């Protein structure tokens, strides 16, 4: 066997600088997000074609979506209502008079040679949303605006060797572009904000939030500046981020990249950068100089969108309980901690599941522990949405009730949960069939304890001499003898009586 040749890579001054960056130079990160949220209307924003995902290429594109000569857009009112739902949910200023404009650029998956969007006057103006910080407090993130626009089609470059393919099924799908203020100071905060918006759009039923299918897409504007300075640094825009994990990664490597440049005395170039999840890097897509002049102007084919007060009132009244309201209610009504309430209300489906358990009579705190503990862990491990959970809220609530009424212990319950997950029947059947019911017969437990005391005289002596830690040993022996079925409370109580 040849000797292994170890050679340590010499570490350069740059690396030292990088390591001690936090000490040598204090940078502050500034992040703003642009979120494209696909609205789940039945038909497209300006045509009657279906918006369903996954159909055969170009089967869901009508004359309007294809941009045939002579066709005209007609605004889908449902998309407007959804934008208003969002605006009202973030307490934004609603522009009751907004207009659609044309964003002009050429690309093969943009059939008309322009995208119908909103520019000067978006339907939703300034608003704000609270996010939780890692210190346990909350922070308000400003929302600059949210505007309606149509999605482009898809270009597919890897299907054929000699040419690209175009699928226009997505062309004309309604999007709500939600633009934040540059209020976030770390990748973690950016993720917290994105998750909050993600939860909100699902809460108010305007987006399915599916990031894999591209229903919810984030672009991040990232810049850094010396701490305690006011002026913003030159920003880059990161695109092609399709998960929260990648959002955090992409921002962090971009921060690193910008720090390297600035500390080497260079300048950050204003540009759009593409995140590559495989290589975990960002690379330049186009610089500001290469950017299009979009030549925005009001679309003469569409009338201004004028919103009546009555409609706003109607939509406001139709909004469901929002995440923050729900969280506060969970704290006050169920006595949950802020942390638990925040977690349980992060997804509407999770909160609904939890509340269904409570409505079935399960204990609030125990239920919270089970939903966030065993259930969430199993769902995550198997990558199942809570809507598709093999254990229904009613079933889990039965399990919790059996813990609370002392039928089984929490420990036994974990085994029962596993059986339920695997589809081995309902709670009571599993307990019955496997004989898991807790021993509550005092006489029987006393009998077992008497036996154990008789067989462990040495430990009894020590206990009586003051080594009270040995109580655990006796409890363990009892549980062993009863296969865990003895009620731990009862065991403790009887042991204490007999040993004193």
């Amino acid at each position: 066997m040849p000797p292994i040749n170890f050679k340590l890579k010499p570490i350069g001054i740059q690396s030292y600088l990088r390591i001690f960056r936090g000490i040598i130079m204090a940078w502050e990160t500034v992040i703003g997000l642009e979120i494209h949220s696909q609205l789940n209307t039945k038909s497209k924003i300006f045509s009657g074609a279906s918006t369903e995902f996954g159909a055969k290429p170009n089967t869901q594109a009508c004359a309007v979506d294809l941009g045939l000569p002579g066709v005209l857009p007609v605004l889908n009112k449902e998309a407007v209502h959804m934008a208003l739902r969002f605006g009202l949910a973030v307490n934004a200023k609603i522009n009751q008079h907004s207009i659609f404009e044309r964003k002009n650029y050429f690309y093969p998956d943009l059939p008309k040679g322009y995208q119908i969007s909103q520019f000067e006057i978006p339907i939703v103006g300034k608003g704000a949303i609270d996010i939780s910080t890692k210190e346990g407090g909350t922070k308000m993130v400003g929302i600059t605006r949210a505007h309606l626009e149509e999605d482009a089609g898809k270009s597919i470059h890897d299907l054929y060797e000699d040419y690209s393919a175009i699928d226009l099924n997505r062309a004309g799908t309604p999007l709500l572009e939600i633009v934040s203020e540059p209020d976030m100071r770390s990748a973690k905060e950016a993720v917290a904000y994105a998750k909050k918006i993600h939860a909100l759009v699902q809460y108010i039923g305007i987006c399915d939030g599916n990031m894999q299918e591209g229903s919810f897409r984030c672009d991040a504007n990232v810049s850094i500046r010396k701490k305690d300075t006011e002026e913003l640094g030159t920003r880059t825009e990161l695109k092609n981020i399709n998960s929260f994990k990648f959002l955090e990664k992409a921002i962090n490597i971009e921060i690193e990249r910008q720090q390297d440049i600035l500390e080497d005395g260079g300048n950050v170039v204003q540009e759009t950068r593409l995140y590559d999840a495989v290589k975990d890097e960002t690379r330049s897509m186009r610089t500001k100089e290469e950017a299009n002049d979009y030549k925005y102007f009001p679309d003469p084919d569409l009338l201004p969108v004028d919103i009546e007060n009555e409609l706003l009132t109607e939509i406001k009244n139709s909004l469901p309980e929002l995440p923050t309201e729900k969280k506060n209610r969970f704290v006050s009504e169920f006595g949950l901690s802020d942390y638990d309430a925040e977690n349980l209300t992060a997804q509407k489906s999770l909160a609904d599941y939890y509340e269904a358990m409570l409505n079935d009579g399960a204990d609030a705190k125990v239920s919270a522990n089970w939903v966030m503990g065993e259930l969430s862990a199993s769902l995550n491990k198997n990558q199942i949405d809570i809507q598709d959970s093999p254990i229904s809220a009613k079933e889990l609530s039965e399990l919790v009730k059996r813990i609370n009424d002392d039928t089984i212990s929490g420990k036994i319950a974990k085994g029962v949960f596993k059986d339920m997950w695997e589809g081995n029947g309902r709670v009571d059947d599993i307990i019955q069939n496997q004989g898991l019911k807790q021993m509550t017969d005092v006489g029987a437990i006393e009998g077992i304890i008497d036996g154990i005391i008789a067989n462990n005289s040495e430990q009894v002596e020590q206990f009586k001499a003051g080594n009270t830690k040995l109580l655990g040993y006796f409890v363990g022996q009892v549980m062993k003898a009863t296969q865990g079925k003895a009620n731990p409370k009862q065991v403790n109580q009887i042991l204490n009586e007999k040993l004193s």
Partner: protein
Amino acid sequence: MHTLSVAELSKSLKNKEFSAVELTQHYLDRINRSDLNAFITVTDELALSQAREADAKLANGSGSVLTGIPFAQKDIFCTKGVKTSAGSKILDPFISPYDATLSHKLNIENMVMLGKTNMDEFAMGSSNENSFYGPVKNPWNKKMVPGGSSGGSAAAVAGRLSPFATGTDTGGSIRQPSSLCGITGIKPTYGRVSRYGMIAYASSLDQAGPMTQTAEDAALILNAIAGFDEKDSTSAPRDVPDYTKSLRDSIKSLKIGIPKEFFLEGLDSSVEKVITESMKEFEAMGAKLQEISLPNSTYAIPTYYIVAPCECSSNLSRLDGVRYGYRCKDPKDLNDLYLRSRSEGFGDEVKRRIMIGTYALSAGYYDAYYLKAQKVRHLISEDFKRAFKKVDIIMGPVSPTTAFELGAIKDPVSMYLADIYTLSANLAGLPGMSIPAGFSNNLPVGLQMIGNYWSEEVLLNAAHQFQTQTDWHSVLPENI
């Protein structure tokens, strides 16, 4: 039978004096013998099958007043299964897979489409010389232009190759060729007729209308094509009156405004004379004339030549060689595909307007051009609003001259002057009309009438009354 108006043909068809098939064949024969180049596509077979259907309807009495009437469709309207080129090479290969709303509305009346008429490419032009399919000749003098952009439609009606034709008017494209060819044409209020399926030139100005022999015919056709269309957000949700009802109303005490700005330098004196004479005719019928002023109308040309090119530069972006229409041979890459397909596919005037529009919308120029033009446009509308507080109708020339010689005007800016009196109505969105009012050197002169919003009835009524007192509309070119 080709000298009969739509109203007269309707009666003859109903009385079985001839069948729709016979009538259609007669017009098809005339088209085939014609050297006017008025048509890009003649739809013989389709026309005859439509005529047969119409005859069946007429036979069982379920036809409408327009059933079986042949017409010529401007090639800017999409017609299912039929080439729809808009006079451009770039759409030469385009067979529309759908019908424009206007096409559909004429179809459900069981009318007979003879073919698609020649036009300036994408409706940009005032002489019909900007067509990929060659210029159209004026039936009154074949050395002369028919006007544009609806030159093929105007020549087809004037040459009696069709009882009537459809047209579109963005800056005068119905009225100016109607004037130069001696026919009746109306551009309705913006929003009166659906634009769905009408290939867009300048969306905020484009409006379709009929080009006919008489005001009565125009009323009959407008009845069929006007009205709200849920496919066009800019079409007006207003009821459509029966435009034939008010034709015979008296125009006694009709207040006519004559804008002094329409009679300044540049107006041909022989045209002016015809217009003045026709005013006297109206006066004789009891109308009251008064001079008015539309001070901002003098800015109509520069305003129009910002607004229209801006919109067209964007409207024509979809013609990129990717999905339909002309595509250059062997494109090297995407940029080459765009560049050559568009460079080879568009004509000079279209390219000129795309470039003007692209420039005017560019960052840094938008406020100075597009926004400024919109402000002036507003002022032009305000002039009209003020005027219509005093008068019921505004009258003046359609065009500063009669038809000019083919090839005579080479400078594009001089050509733009041909629409000096018609542009304002488009910028304001008002209805405008041209009716035959006399002749100058054996060439027709049109009188322009501009009405208040939604006052097509007033225009048609005044035009019809004029046509009961004069014969200008029934004078035919030689050899018809």
